[in-house]
C-alpha cells in the first residue's frame, strides 16, 4: 500500500468500469422549510452556501430522500413534511454516465406523508421500491460524524444499515421486519408473557437477524480495508485504522436466544441480535473512541465515510453522490487539500456550509456555488 500513497497517482476510488451517477435538477414541494423550489446542480463539485436555518441541510436531505427514500435525519417521513402540509413531493432528474461518455437520464419522483408513499420512475407509477432503489446511491457526510468513532453503537449500526441497504436489495425490508419481530418480543417480555409466547418470535427474529448479520459480515472487512487506505492517505501514512465487526449473538443466534431467555426475562428486553451489533474502531491498535484526539477522530470518520463511497463504487459499479453537510469548510488546513483531491476523483459532490471563507477557493477550483437566501 505504501507505494500507492507516495505517488501522485494514488486514488481512493477505483472506478475501473464504474458509471458516474449525478443529479442535474431537483424540484421540491412542501419539504421541510421549502414550499416550492427548483435547483440545478453541476457535474462535479457543488457548494451550497447560506446562513444557518436557510435550508442547506434540507436540500441535501431532499437529494438523499428522492434517491434512497430515507433520511439520515429522521426515521419517519412525517417530520420532512413542511408545516401545515399533508405530503411532500420531490422530483429529481438524474443522469448515469458510462465510460465511453454515453449518458442515460432517469427521472425519479416521490410523494410521501399522511396519504402514504407513491413513487414514479420516468413518469410511471411503480408499486415496488426494489427497482426504484436500484438506480442511484449516496453517501452522507455530516459535521457530527465524529460520533461514529466516539458515540454509541446506534451511530455505527446506522452507518452499516445505510451502506448495506444500498448494496443489498431487500436489506431494508428485512431490517423493518426484524424490528417488528424485536418490538413484539420485547413487548411480550415487558408484559411478562409466558415463555412459549416469547419464544414464538425467536425463529423469525433469528432468521431475519441472520440475514442482516450475513450482509454486515460481508461488508465489514471491506470497510476495514478501505477506511485504513483512506486514513493512511489523509495522514501521510502516520495513522492506521482497524475496524472489527462485533456481531451480537454470534453465528448461532437462535440457540443463543434460547439460552439467554432468563436474562432477557429479567431485563425485560431482548439482549442479543443485530440490534446490539457494533464495530470497534482502533487507531494504531488502541480504541479510537477513548484514545484518539479530536482531529484523529475527525480523520477516522472521514475514512469511514469515504470507505462507504469506495465500496459502493467497487460493488455497484456506480459512483454515489457525496452529500457533505458542514464538512468541507470545517476541515483543518492539512487535510483539506487531501480531501479535495479525493473529491476531484470524479464523484459528484454537493457540499453545504455556512462559512463564507471557503468561497475564494471554491471559485478558483471551478466549483458551482449556490447561494441560498431565506
Amino acid at each position: 500500500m505504501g507505494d500507492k500513497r507516495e505517488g501522485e497517482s494514488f486514488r481512493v476510488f477505483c472506478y475501473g468500469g464504474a458509471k458516474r451517477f449525478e443529479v442535474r435538477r431537483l424540484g421540491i414541494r412542501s419539504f421541510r422549510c421549502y414550499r416550492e423550489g427548483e435547483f440545478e446542480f453541476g457535474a462535479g463539485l457543488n457548494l451550497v452556501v447560506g446562513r444557518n436555518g436557510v435550508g442547506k441541510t434540507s436540500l441535501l436531505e431532499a437529494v438523499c430522500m428522492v434517491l434512497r427514500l430515507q433520511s439520515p435525519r429522521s426515521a419517519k417521513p412525517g417530520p420532512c413534511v413542511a408545516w401545515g402540509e399533508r405530503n411532500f413531493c420531490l422530483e429529481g432528474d438524474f443522469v448515469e454516465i458510462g465510460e465511453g461518455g454515453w449518458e442515460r437520464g432517469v427521472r425519479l419522483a416521490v410523494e410521501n406523508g399522511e396519504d402514504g408513499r407513491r413513487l414514479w420512475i420516468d413518469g410511471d407509477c411503480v408499486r415496488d421500491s426494489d427497482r426504484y432503489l436500484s438506480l442511484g446511491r449516496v453517501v452522507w457526510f455530516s459535521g457530527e460524524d465524529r460520533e461514529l468513532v466516539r458515540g454509541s453503537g446506534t451511530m455505527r449500526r446506522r452507518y452499516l444499515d445505510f451502506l448495506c441497504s444500498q448494496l443489498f436489495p431487500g436489506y431494508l425490508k428485512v431490517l423493518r421486519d426484524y424490528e417488528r419481530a424485536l418490538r413484539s418480543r420485547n413487548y411480550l417480555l415487558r408484559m411478562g408473557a409466558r415463555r412459549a409466547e416469547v419464544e414464538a418470535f425467536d425463529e423469525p427474529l433469528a432468521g431475519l437477524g441472520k440475514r442482516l448479520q450475513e450482509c454486515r459480515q460481508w461488508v465489514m472487512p471491506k470497510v476495514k480495508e478501505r477506511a485504513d487506505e483512506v486514513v493512511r492517505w489523509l495522514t501521510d501514512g502516520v495513522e492506521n485504522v482497524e475496524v472489527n465487526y462485533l456481531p451480537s449473538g454470534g453465528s448461532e443466534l437462535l440457540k443463543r436466544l434460547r439460552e439467554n431467555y432468563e436474562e432477557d426475562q429479567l431485563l425485560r428486553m431482548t439482549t442479543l441480535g443485530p440490534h446490539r451489533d457494533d464495530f470497534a474502531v482502533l487507531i494504531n491498535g488502541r480504541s479510537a473512541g477513548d484514545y484518539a484526539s479530536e482531529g484523529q477522530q475527525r480523520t477516522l470518520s472521514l475514512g469511514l465515510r469515504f470507505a462507504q463511497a469506495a465500496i459502493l463504487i467497487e460493488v455497484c459499479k456506480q459512483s454515489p453522490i457525496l452529500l457533505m453537510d458542514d464538512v468541507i469548510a470545517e476541515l483543518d488546513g492539512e487535510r483539506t487539500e487531501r480531501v479535495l483531491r479525493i473529491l476531484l476523483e470524479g464523484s459528484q459532490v454537493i457540499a453545504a456550509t455556512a462559512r463564507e471563507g471557503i468561497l475564494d477557493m471554491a471559485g478558483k477550483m471551478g466549483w458551482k456555488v449556490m447561494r441560498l437566501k431565506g
Partner: protein
Amino acid sequence: MKTSSPYPDSLEILLSELKRIPGLGPKGASRIALWLLSDPSRRSIPLSRALANAAEKITLCLECGFWAEATLCKICSDSTRNGSVLCVVEQPMDVLSIEKTGIFRGLYHVLGGRLSPLNQVGPEHLRISQLLKRVEQLKPQEVILALGADVESLATMSYLSSILKEKMIKVSKIAFGIPAGGGIEHADVLTLQNAFKGRSLL
C-alpha cells in the same frame, strides 16, 4: 361554510352505513346508494333481506371456525373429507382460497387471526385451545400450517409447531416461493431470496 345536507335523513343513514364498508369512500358510497335506490323493489329489498338473513343465520362452525349455518360447516359435515390431515389457516377467506385449488381434501382449522402482541392479540384470542382439543380427538397424521409469510404469521407457526410437536404430531408448513405461471422477473427480491433458500433437489 358548512351547510346542512340536502339529503333526506334515511338516505344519510344509508350513506353513513355504506361508508363503514372497508375500501368504500364517500363517492363510492353515494354511487352504490344511487344504484340501490333507483329501483328499490328489484335491488335494495332483496339485498336487505339477504343481509339480514345472513347476519341472522351465519355463525362459525363449532369444529373448525369456518362460516356455517348449522353447528357444523359444509366441509366438516362432508363425510368424504379426510379427517387424518388438518390444515390450519388464519382467516375463513383462506379456506376459500385453498378450496379453489382442489388440492386439499382434509379438514380445516381457522385460527381467526395470528399472534400479534403489538395489536394485543395473544394465543387466548385465537382458536388454539379448540385446535388442541380437535387434535386430541382426530389424532391426525399431519397438521399443515398454511399461514402467511410475515413476521407475525411466522411467529404463530413457530408457536403452533412447538405445542403440536409436544403432542408428537407431525407438523408441516406450506412452501414459500415464486408465483406459478409468472416468470422470475415478476417476483420481488425477498420472495426470490426465500425461493432460493427453499430450493429442492431434483
